[in-house]
C-alpha cells in the first residue's frame, strides 16, 4: 500500500501529458533547407525509418515517464518495504515480564534491568503515531503513550507475582483487536520460564497476532521456599513449621525459622525436601514468622512469611454422660500437656452455660429436655431421630475425617456445619456450642477405638473450642475469600474494611495481613507470598512457546528483534528511489535523443 506525504503534488502528474499533447497538437512545419544530397538523405531516412519511429516512441514514453516520476517523487510516496527506515503507524504491545523471577541476577546484572533496556529500545523505535500497549507482571494490558511507557520502565521493579505469559499475550491481543492500525505486533520481553506458560486445560487458543519474543540469559540453578505449613494450627506453646523447598539447585542449604528477627528453629534441606522446623513461643498471640534459605542469585523466593498463633492449652472437662472413651482420652491429653484441667470446654450430653460440645444422651427420654435447653440458648439446631447405617465423616473436623459412623441422631436446623456423615450434618456449631450427632462409643462410631480419636479431641479443644482462627494463603494481588467473621484486614496497621462478598484482593506486598472481627480481635491472617512456580527458572522449549503464542511467533536474539521489529509495517520514502529512477530515465532520454549526432567519420 502506498501513501503520499504531499498528495497535492500528484496534480503534477497532469504535466506528464504535456509531451504527448505537444507531439499531437503542436506540430509545425519545419523550415525548408535547400540541399543537394537529398538522394543520400532519402536513402538514409528510408533505412532508418523503423528505428527512428521506435526511437521517437521511446523518447515520448521516456519523457512522459520522466515527468510522471518527478511528480510522483514530489508527492513523497511511502510504501511498505521491509528495508524501510520508518514504519506505518502500528499497534505494538510490549509484554514486559517483571515477575518475581526477573529479580534474578545473571552475570552481575538483574534480569529485569536487561528486560527494561530492551523495552526502552522498543519504545525508542516506536513513533508518536504508534499505539502502544504495555503489559506487566499483573497481565493487564494498558494503553499508554510513549512518555508514559518510558516513565513506567524507569521505576519498574520485580513484582512478587507470576505472569501467565500466554494469558497476557492473549489479553493484549484482544485489546488490540479493534485497533485500526494496519500492523499489530506483540513484543514479549521475558525470561520465558516454562512455568509462565499455561498448560493443559488452562491453555486457550493461541494469540492471533505477530509475536516477537526475546529472552535474556537466565540462571541455571535456583532454589526457593515453595510452601510452609504450621502444625498444629495453634501452638500451645510448641509447634512445627513444615517447609517445602523447590527449585533446580540440588545442593543442601540452611533453613531457618525466624520470628521477629530471631531464629527459633534451624535445619538443613535440599531440593524437593520437606524440612520440619520445630519451635515454641514464649508468649501467646499472633506472630509473623519467616522461613529463610541462604540467599542465592534470586533472593525473593528464598523467604516465605507465615502467621503463627500461640495460645496456652485449652481447658477441658467431660461429664460422665459423655462416655468413658472420651473421659479417658481427655486424661491422656491432660497428661501430655495438650489441655489444661478446667471447664473451659465441657464435653457433655447436656447443654451447659459455657463452651460446650454436646453429644446425644444415651437415654432417649432426655432428648426432649436437651432440645428444649438448646432452644432456650437460642441454638437453631435440634437432635432428631436416631438413624443407623454406615457413613464416613467429612468436613472441617481435623483427624476425624474418614472415620466410620454407624449410628447417629439427625441434626436438624440451620447454621454452620463443621462435618457431615452421609451428607447430613454430623458436627454443627452455633456460637460456643458444638453439637455432635453420635456418641463417642463404639456402637455409634469407630472413632473412640481409632488412633485419630485423641488428636480429634485435641482438635476439638484447641481449635473448635478455642477462639476461631483462619489462615488464608494468597499470592500478591490474588482475590481470596475470607471468613464471615472477618470484618477488616490490617494493612500496615490500618484496618481496611472487608466487603460484603467477603472477597479480598490480597496486597501486592508480601507479608502477613491479620483479619480482625467486629470487636477488633485477630481471628486469622492472609499470608501473601510468592508463587512457587516462579522459583523454577528453566526456560520453556521453543515448541511450547510457539504452540502457545501461535504460528506467527519468532524467538529472536537482540539483533533479530531489532531487525524484525515493525517489519510488517516498515515503509520507505520512495522519493529518493524515484528521483534516482528519474535520473536514469533522463540519462536514457539524453542518450537516446543524442544518439545519431555523436560520431563523425570522414570518407
Amino acid at each position, binding site marked *: 500500500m502506498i501513501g503520499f506525504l504531499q498528495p497535492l503534488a500528484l496534480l503534477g502528474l497532469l504535466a506528464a501529458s504535456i509531451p504527448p499533447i505537444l507531439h499531437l497538437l503542436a506540430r509545425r512545419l519545419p*523550415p525548408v533547407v535547400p*540541399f543537394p544530397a*537529398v538522394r543520400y*538523405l532519402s536513402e538514409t531516412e528510408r533505412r*532508418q525509418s523503423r528505428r527512428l519511429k521506435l526511437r521517437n516512441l521511446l523518447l515520448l514514453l521516456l519523457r512522459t515517464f520522466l515527468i510522471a516520476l518527478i511528480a510522483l517523487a514530489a508527492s513523497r510516496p511511502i510504501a511498505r518495504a521491509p528495508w524501510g527506515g520508518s514504519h506505518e503507524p502500528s499497534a505494538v504491545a510490549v509484554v514486559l515480564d517483571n515477575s518475581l523471577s526477573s529479580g534474578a541476577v545473571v552475570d552481575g546484572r538483574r534480569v529485569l534491568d536487561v528486560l527494561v533496556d530492551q523495552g526502552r529500545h522498543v519504545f525508542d523505535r516506536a513513533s508518536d503515531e504508534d499505539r502502544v500497549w504495555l503489559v506487566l507482571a499483573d497481565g493487564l494490558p494498558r494503553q499508554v503513550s510513549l512518555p508514559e511507557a518510558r516513565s513506567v520502565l524507569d521505576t519498574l521493579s520485580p513484582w512478587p507475582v507470576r505472569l501467565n505469559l500466554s494469558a497476557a499475550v492473549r489479553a493484549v491481543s484482544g485489546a488490540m483487536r479493534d485497533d485500526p492500525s494496519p500492523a499489530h505486533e506483540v513484543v514479549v520481553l521475558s525470561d520465558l520460564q516454562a512455568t509462565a506458560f499455561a498448560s493443559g486445560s488452562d491453555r486457550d487458543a493461541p494469540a492471533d497476532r505477530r509475536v516477537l519474543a526475546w529472552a535474556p540469559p537466565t540462571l541455571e540453578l535456583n532454589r526457593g521456599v515453595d510452601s510452609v505449613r504450621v502444625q498444629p494450627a495453634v501452638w500451645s506453646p510448641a509447634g512445627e513449621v513444615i517447609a517445602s523447598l523447590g527449585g533446580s539447585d540440588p545442593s543442601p542449604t540452611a533453613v531457618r525459622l525466624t520470628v521477629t528477627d530471631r531464629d527459633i528453629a534451624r535445619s538443613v534441606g535440599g531440593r524437593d525436601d520437606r524440612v520440619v522446623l520445630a519451635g515454641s513461643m514464649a508468649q501467646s498471640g499472633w506472630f509473623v514468622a519467616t522461613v529463610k534459605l541462604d540467599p542465592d542469585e534470586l533472593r525473593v523466593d528464598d523467604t516465605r512469611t507465615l502467621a503463627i498463633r500461640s495460645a496456652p492449652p485449652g481447658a477441658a472437662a467431660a461429664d460422665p454422660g459423655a462416655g468413658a472413651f472420651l473421659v479417658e482420652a481427655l486424661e491422656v491429653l491432660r497428661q501430655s500437656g495438650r489441655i489444661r484441667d478446667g471447664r473451659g470446654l465441657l464435653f457433655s450430653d447436656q447443654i451447659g452455660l459455657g463452651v460446650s460440645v454436646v453429644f446425644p444422651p444415651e437415654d432417649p427420654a432426655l432428648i426432649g429436655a436437651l432440645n428444649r435447653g438448646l432452644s432456650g440458648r437460642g441454638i437453631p439446631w435440634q437432635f432428631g431421630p436416631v438413624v443407623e447405617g454406615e457413613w464416613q465423616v467429612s468436613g472441617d473436623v481435623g483427624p476425624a475425617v474418614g472415620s466410620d459412623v454407624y449410628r447417629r441422631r439427625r441434626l436438624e436446623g440451620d447454621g454452620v456445619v463443621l462435618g457431615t456423615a452421609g451428607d447430613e450434618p454430623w458436627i454443627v456449631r452455633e456460637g460456643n456450642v458444638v453439637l455432635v450427632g453420635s456418641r463417642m462409643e463404639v456402637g455409634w462410631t469407630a472413632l473412640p477405638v481409632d488412633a485419630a480419636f485423641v488428636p480429634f479431641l485435641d482438635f476439638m479443644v484447641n481449635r473448635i473450642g478455642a477462639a476461631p482462627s483462619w489462615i488464608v494463603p494468597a499470592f500478591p494481588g490474588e482475590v481470596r475469600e475470607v471468613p464471615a467473621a472477618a470484618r477488616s484486614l490490617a494493612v500496615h496497621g490500618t484496618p481496611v474494611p472487608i466487603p460484603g462478598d467477603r472477597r479480598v484482593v490480597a496486597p501486592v506486598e508480601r507479608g502477613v495481613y491479620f483479619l480482625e472481627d467486629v470487636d477488633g480481635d485477630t481471628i486469622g491472617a492472609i499470608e501473601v507470598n510468592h508463587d512457587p512456580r516462579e522459583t523454577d527458572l528453566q526456560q520453556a522449549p521453543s515448541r511450547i512457546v510457539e504452540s502457545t503464542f501461535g504460528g506467527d511467533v519468532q524467538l529472536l536474539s537482540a539483533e533479530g528483534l531489532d531487525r524484525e521489529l515493525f517489519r510488517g509495517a516498515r515503509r520507505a520514502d520512495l522519493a529518493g528511489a524515484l528521483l534516482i529512477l528519474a535520473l536514469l530515465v533522463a540519462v536514457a532520454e539524453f542518450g537516446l535523443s543524442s544518439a545519431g*549526432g555523436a560520431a563523425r567519420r570522414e*570518407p
Partner: protein
Amino acid sequence: MASASRIDLLDPYEVAQLGGLEIVAEGVVEGFLAGLHRSPFRGFSVEFAEHRPYEAGDELRYVDWRMLARSDKLFVKQYEEETNLRSMIVLDASASMDWSGAERRLSKLDYAKRLTAALALVFLRQRDATGFIGFDEEVRSRVPARARRQQWWTLLRAVHNLPAGHGTAAADALRRVTGMLRRRGLVVFISDMLFDRDLALLAMQYLRHRGHQVLVFHVMDPAELFLEGPPEARFEDLETGDLISVRPRDLRVAYNETVRRAIDAWRTQCRRSGIAYHHVLTDAPFGYVLRRATARRARLG
C-alpha cells in the same frame, strides 16, 4: 616564402577572390608547376633530349646508370616534350552543382569551373589536345579538343559561360557525351555524382571499352558529408524540388555512413572498371587536385 606565392595551395575561396577564371587558373598552374622539382611534362615522353647533372629531388628512375658506371658521376636523362594525347574535360553543370554549404566557400560548380580551367591549362601546356563538354540535362557546351595556343581561351570562355542547369538527366547526357568522344584519349569527368551510379558507371565503362582513360573528380561540398541544420527541417532537392522532413540530429550518423558508403562504392566500382576516382572537397586547394590529375596523366605517358 615559397608557399606564400603558391596560390595553388591556398583556400580555393580566397584564390577565387583574386580575379576571373583565367587569372585564377594561370596562378594556380604556375604555382603548381613551380612547386615541382621537375617539369611534369618532361620525363613522360619517349624522345631522349639530353643529360644533365643530378640534382636533389630528381627521380631515381631517370638516373643514367650507365653514365654513372662510366664516369662515376650522376646524370639524369631528359626527354623532349611530346604530346599525342587527347584530353576531354566533362563538367557537370546540373542544379545540384550550384550549391555551397557555407558563405565563404565556392559552390561546387564554381570550384569545378576553376579546376577545369587549371586542368585545361596544364594539359595544353604539355601540348595535349584538350576539349570541354558541359552538360546538365543536356549537353550545354562543347569545345572540341585542340592543342592550339588559343584553345585555352576558347575553352575558358565556354566554361565561363556555362550556366547552372536545372536538373540532371545524367543517363541521356552521358550517352550523348560518350557519343561525342570518338577518338581515344583522356576523359576527365568532374561532377558531384548525384545521379544513378549504375547508369553513370555504365557510360564510363563504355568509354573505357572504347579505349579511353577515364578520370573522375567527385566534387563534394564538406557540408554534404555531415548533416547539419535546424532541429527539424524540410530538405529540398535542388534538382527535383522534392522535400523530406527529418531531424538532422537523428540521422547524422546514419547519413554520414550513407555518404561514406556511397563514396566507397564509387571508389571501388571505378577501380574495378579501371577508372581513376578522386573525391574532391570544395575546400581542398586546387594544387592538391592538380597533383592527383597530373600523376594520373604521368602514368598514362
